[in-house]
């Protein structure tokens, strides 16, 4: 039996089961929780690092931010919050923007923004770590 005929014998309930109104299942729901849990210890660590860096000059700040442990914490923080931000803002857009074209453009822009800001921040950390 080919795949197409398998699709045809699926009941409508079977086709939508687990996919819901978003047609993508619980993927976003789960990833939002996963990144939320990761964000908690990372945020606490980042806040402590920020307080440590207050009032220091560029050389000291660069040295601390570029040190392996701090740099890795910052990179994990950037990755986790940007993934979290992307899903969160998409939910806000889907809640308030009902025009299909505008919604499409905003969701696309949301992806561009979160990846761009995340990569820019990560670039800063890599530059500090590798001294390039």
């Amino acid at each position, binding site marked *: 039996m080919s795949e197409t005929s398998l699709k045809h014998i699926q009941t409508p309930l079977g086709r939508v089961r687990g996919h819901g109104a978003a047609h993508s299942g619980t993927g976003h729901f789960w990833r939002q*929780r996963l990144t*939320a*849990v990761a*964000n*908690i210890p990372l*945020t606490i660590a980042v*806040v402590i690092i920020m*307080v440590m860096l*207050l*009032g220091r*000059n*560029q*050389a000291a*700040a*660069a040295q601390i*931010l570029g040190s392996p442990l701090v740099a890795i914490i*910052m990179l994990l923080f*950037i990755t986790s*919050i*940007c993934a979290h*931000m992307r899903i*969160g*803002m998409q939910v*806000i857009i889907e809640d308030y923007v009902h025009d299909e074209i505008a919604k499409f453009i905003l969701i696309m822009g949301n992806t561009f923004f979160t990846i761009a*800001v*995340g990569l*820019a*921040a990560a*670039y*800063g*950390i890599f*530059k*500090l770590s590798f001294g390039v």
Partner: protein
Amino acid sequence: MAETKAPAARPLSPHLQIYRLTLTMMMSIAHRITGAGLYFGTLLLAWWFLAAASGPTGYAKFEWFAGSIIGRLILFGYTWALIHHMLGGVRHLIWDTGRGLGPGEREWLAAANLVGSIAMTILLWVVGLLTMGGPR
């Protein structure tokens, strides 16, 4: 059904203004607003890293901004939003397990979220300003 009257002006399904504003409702809105604020606040985080990586001149610009009244206000708001959203997130994770949804618990969690975030933000700023030798 001979006489067909014009439809009476019946109320539509209740919208936001119908409901009494409750603390849990406000904390729900605050969670979304702080989340959106943090979204754009990430630009500051990226600026901070890039400024530190660019050298003393670039870092001086960031420090000038961070030390200005507007900069301080934005950073204070960012700190509060970060902590409020984090504690709100913990509240949501508790709810995800099916716990803390009773009427009393909901109110308590909402109040703890607000009081905790304000207290922790003030504490952090006091510690921060003291360790850097007071306001410059």
